[in-house]
Structures are given as structure tokens and as C-alpha cells.
């Protein structure tokens, strides 16, 4: 009789232990999830902003190209407006020409002959930073010392 009761108690204790363990685990999972959610929300917000900005940068490129052919005060104002907003949001153009090519900042789209190796000779698509992060990598032409046709 006592032995059976002892056995039952032991079984219940184990069950309780298991239930407590699961409960704590669930609580921990939940708390972790809450933290993750708030982190993800922040990330999602900045990603959305970045995605949107990148799409507008394409239009800004077109405006700059248009300016090469169309000298118009109105067009100039629209372009300046665009860049004023970019500026306010912390978007900065990369300064790459003449510097050593850095793949973190730019994609090399063409190799051209030069006096030195790996120097950015020309930017064909401007690169932009937002804060200390790359918003859009630039497209650049990079030098190579030896004759490339060789």
C-alpha cells in the first residue's frame, strides 16, 4: 500500500517536473518571440524604407540623365527636390573615383586599361550609402595595368 503510494507520488512528481519544464520552456519561447518580433519589426521598417529609396534612386538616375539633354529649370527643380529628400533621409552619394576598388561598395562592370591595378576610373551608376550601410552599390569601371586585350 505504502509502496504503491510512494510509487504514485514519485510518478506525479516526475509529471509535475515535466509539466513545469514545459511551461517554462513555453514562457521562454514566448519571451524570445516577443524580442524577435520587435527586432523584426524594426528591421522590416528599415528594409521597406531602403527598398523604396532604391526604387526612387533609379528615377533620380533618369532625371540626371535627362538633364544632360534637356536644359530646363523645372526639371532641375524636380531633381533638386529629389536629392533634398534623399539628403534629409541620410542618403549620401559614394565618392569612389580615383580610389581603390572595394567590392563592398561597388560592382565592377567593366575593366579598362590604366597605370595602376584596381582603381575606380569611372562611375557608371552612382552608389549611395544610408548611414554607414550601403543603400545601393555603385557600378564602376576598374583599371587593370596590363593590356586587357592581351
Amino acid at each position, binding site marked *: 500500500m505504502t509502496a504503491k503510494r510512494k510509487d504514485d507520488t514519485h510518478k506525479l512528481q516526475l509529471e509535475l517536473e515535466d509539466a513545469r519544464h*514545459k511551461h517554462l520552456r513555453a514562457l521562454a519561447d514566448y519571451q524570445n*518571440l516577443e524580442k524577435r518580433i520587435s527586432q523584426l519589426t524594426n528591421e522590416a521598417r528599415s528594409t521597406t524604407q531602403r527598398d523604396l529609396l532604391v526604387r526612387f534612386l533609379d528615377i533620380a538616375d533618369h532625371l540626371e540623365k535627362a538633364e544632360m539633354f534637356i536644359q530646363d529649370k523645372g526639371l532641375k527643380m524636380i531633381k533638386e527636390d529629389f536629392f533634398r529628400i534623399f539628403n534629409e533621409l541620410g542618403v549620401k552619394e559614394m565618392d569612389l573615383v580615383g580610389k581603390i*576598388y572595394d567590392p563592398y561598395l561597388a560592382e565592377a562592370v567593366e*575593366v579598362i586599361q590604366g597605370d595602376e591595378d584596381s582603381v575606380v576610373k569611372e562611375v557608371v551608376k552612382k552608389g549611395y550609402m544610408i548611414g554607414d550601410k550601403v543603400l545601393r552599390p555603385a557600378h564602376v569601371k576598374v583599371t587593370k595595368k596590363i593590356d586587357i586585350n592581351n
Partner: protein
Amino acid sequence: MPKTVGIDLGTTNSVVAVMEGGRPKVISSKEGRNTIPSVVDPEKRIVGDIAKRQLIVKPQEVIFSVKRLMGRKYDDTVVDQEKKWLPYEIVKGKNDRVNIKINDKTYTPEEISAMILKKAKEDAEDYLGDKVDKAVITVPAYFDDSQREATKQAGEIAGLEVLRIINEPTASALAYGLDKKNLHNIAVYDFGGGTFDITILEIGEGVFEVKATRGDTHLGGDDFDQKIIEFLVDEFKKENGIDLAKDPQALQRLKEAAEKAKVELSTSLETEINLPFITVKDGNPLHFVKKLSRAKIESLTEDLIKRSFDPVEECIKDSKIDPKDIDEVILVGGMTRMPRIRDEVKKHFGKEPNKSVNPDEAVALGAAIQAGIIAGDVKDVVLLDVTPLTLGVETLGGVSTPLIERNTAIPTSKSEVFSTAADNQTQVDIHILQGERSLAKDNKSLGRFILEGIPPAPRGMPQVEVTFDIDANGILDVTAKDKATGKSQSIKITGSTGLNKDEIEKMKGDAEKHAESDQQEKERIEARNKADSLVYTAEKSLKDAGDKAPKDIKEDVEKKIKDVKDSLEKGSKEEIETKTKDLSDALQKIGEIAYRQQAEKEKSEKSDASDKSDKSEKSKKNEKDVEEGEVVE
């Protein structure tokens, strides 16, 4: 606790996934993408997107497609083939193995692959905030022992204990949950960025056996892009006589546009490519504008699609399985999003392919599931039930207002505050509903009860808190409590989740079918409720204003109240809204007068003023919080 991940080590892209809360999830890279390009700059130890950016400057130093060389001997005919097009130097290494020579250093394919795996490991650690020390890695079904061994070694070099190497099609089948269904024969059609694979698997007692596998190691999404680019270049040349293929910048823009168009045409029938200022002719800018239809890209890529079905035929023949006996066909790889490919697959196998899993992620997700099974995570997971249908209450005008949305994990509880719809209403009827339809009458009634003894008050003032609580067994407890008196009433409903599968499916189907008309009806009721509420406010304002408001304004408001009331009888939603707006505008004039009088009063008794405005602010807030409840006369 260190975690275990699943890695799809691909020819063009790699993906890493992990089990989280019992479900596999793809981890995004530090660059914010779900895939890591399988491209490596071994000298600088740069992997992925960043390495890929240097491909043009360092064609002999940036390594891609290294998977093609894994575990191969230098004298392999395959290596001979690959050597012809890979720009980097391939040399003979120890034991006749293939090595890659960059400047004066040689690397084994295992070392290069290890760098990709290491990046996957680090991205996962970043995401999880925890160490990752074990992995399940996938390989094509046709990989032989030495290729598998090489993949395992790559994992070890990357600091991962490789728990298992599994076949890509097996991983895909796991991601599709096919191990749990009672199926025998499965076909996995995998059309990726650079390679095509078709595999027929037999499942028995949880064991996956490859019956046959075929493929084309040089057929993929990139070929589709190329076809589209060629077409665009030709079109432009025809129209303008300029070859954009010779202009690297223009070509780059066309490439991006072609890929985007290809993706868009999987969901829409037509897209437009707009590339302003693509080039210059005689000092004048030229723009690229071209409409592209789905039918057009289908005809452009016809032969590529056809090419994938030769291996399919061979594979079926090898497997000695009648296509009729293939229980399920699953789609893997980004190209399988193309509707034409889906149609062709359906035609060949005589059944609708299963496309319920993201095709880019399926392999990695399956690897993560396998990792979870080995690590014991999967069986440890407590599977929580969910409420199959939305639970809510009926509110003014017969609208069904949801409290607990469907697919909410239980146990859970949710409260919301409602109010009365008429002055001096002393009881509310709480009608509990289940279903996805907007109107109460279309949903299933689970029960109802009445909360009495609400002290008489103007409509909208009393606050009745309704709480839904479902326990782990699906028993629903609904309580309504008058916040002023603390009086409460409740009901217990045991059958809230007790619907069978068919009933649930039928209710969901009905909701989808009627979604639009239900929404319209709901909007009409809401417009009516709003109008009704404004009439009430207007009548009250008129009474409050008394003689203070000029006669003409009062008459105008009275007329407009009548207009709204008339439109309530049988007017359309739009008519009710217009009339309501008119009344609202007219009513503002009374408000203005009241404010003006108030301001004059304030001038005379300044000290009193701040206190009063405070109060009105507060009562406004209260009104906002409450929603109207169902009226019982």
C-alpha cells in the same frame, strides 16, 4: 545551446534554414537576401553578393560553380567539359583530384565550398544569436560517394559537424511533408538557376529510395534571361540600328530588366520594359520602351522548356514506373514559377503538380527538417491546436465582428469593449458566431445570452466588456461584463472547434465565394450605422443648442436629418454616405456657434476654462474606445 541548420549548397545559389518553433525557416543573409550566391573570392575570403561584384575584374580569381568540380578527378570527362568555359584555372592536385589555381596558390573545391558553408553558418549564427555547430547538407541525387565525401569534408573544414548528407529531391519531399502522406512514388522536378534535375523517388516506411534521376547540368533560369536579352537587343537594333550588346552599361540595364520581366510575367500576362536614356544616337537620347507578353517569352524559351522534358522521359523509363503510378509531382527551383513549365509538367505526368512550398527554399527547408528530426527538435515540439474558424459576436445591423481570428493558436483569450445602440438600453444580447462571413446571418450561431441590469444611459455610454476564452481543449467561455456595475453573465460552448474537416472547408469556401458581396453589404450596414449615429448626435445637438442657434441653421439641420432618415429606408451606400456628409457639414455650423459662444464666455471667466475643455477631451476619448453593440428592445 548550439543549433543545427540545414544547408542547400547549390551550384549558383545556396540557402540556409533552421527549425524554429517546430517549423523550418529560411535565414536571410547579412545582405538581407534569402539566398547566398555560391561565388567565392578565396584570397580575400569574400563570399556571396560581394564576391559576385568582382567577377568581371577578377575572372580568374573569383570562383563560381565550384559544385561542378566537387569530388572529381582531373581526368574526368566532365572536368574536361567544364574547363572549356570556366574562366579560372583548373589543375591536377593530390591523388589526381581537381584543384583550382589562383595566382600562386591552389585550393581544393572542398576548401572553396567550405567558405560558402562558413558564410551560411555565420549568417545563421547572426540571426539566431547562438552558435551553430552541426548541419545537414544536401547534394544532387546523382552525386557519387566521392562527391558526397567531398561535400562532407567541406562542412568539416567550415567547422560544422555534418550530421547527414541527404539528396536534394528527398529534402524537397520532406519540405512538402510527403513523408507523412501515404504515398509511394514521387517525381521531383527541379529547375534552378543553372541546372535542371528530375528524380523519381519511392517512399516506404519513412525511407526514401531514388528510383531514377536525370538532368541537364547546363540548363537553368540564366538561359531564359539570356534568350529574353537577345530578343530585346534584336528588337532595338531593328528599330534604331544600334547594337546595345556592345554597350556594357546598356546591356547591364537590359539584363536587370529582362530578369524583372521574366518574374513579372509569371503572375501577369503582360509587362512593359521602360529604360529611359538607354543610349545616344546622333546626339539625341534614345529610350527603350517595349511591351512584353507572357506568350512572347513562352515562344522565345520554347526550346529550353522542351529540353527539360527529354531527361524527364528518360527518367520515367529508367524508373520502370508508369507515369500513372506516380502519386505526386512536386516543383522545386525558381523557374517552376513559370506557368508554361507548370502546364507542361502537368501534361507529362497527367496530374496537377504540387506547388505549395516556395520553390527556391524547398531544398533548404527539407534539410532543416531532417536536421530537426536528427537533433530531436521535431518530436519534442508541442503541436498547438488552432481555431479553424473565426469567432465573434453580432453587432449593430447584423454585422459579425470577429474577436478571435481563425488559425489563432489555442489556448488564448481576447476582450473587446462594446456599447449600447439606443438611449436607456438596459440589456444587451450577446450572440456568439463562428465563420468567415461578414454578416451574422451567414455564420454559424454557437449560442447567445443576455446581459441585463445596465443602468439607463445615453447610447454609446455604457461599456460592456466581452471576453472570449478558449482553453486547450477547444472549450469556449464567453463573458460579458458591464464595467459600471460589475455585473456579468457568461456561457460555455463546448463544440466550438468540433466541426469536421468538410464543414470547415465548406465554410471557408463559402467565405471566399461571397467575400465581395459580403463586404459590400457590410459597408452598407456600416454606412447606415454611421448615419444613424449622426442623426442621433444631430438631434441631441439641436436640443442642447436650444435658442442659441439661429433659426435658419436649425431648419437646415432639421431638413438634412430628414434627408438622411429617408435615405436610410432604401438608399444605396453611396446615397447614405452623401446625405450623411451633408448633415455632418450642416451640423458643424451649430458646433461653430457653440464654440464661439464658449470662447466669448471664456474671455469673461478665464480661470474656469481650462478645466472644462479638459473634460470634453476626456469624454471624446471614451466615445472612441467603444463600439456599438447589438440592440435589444
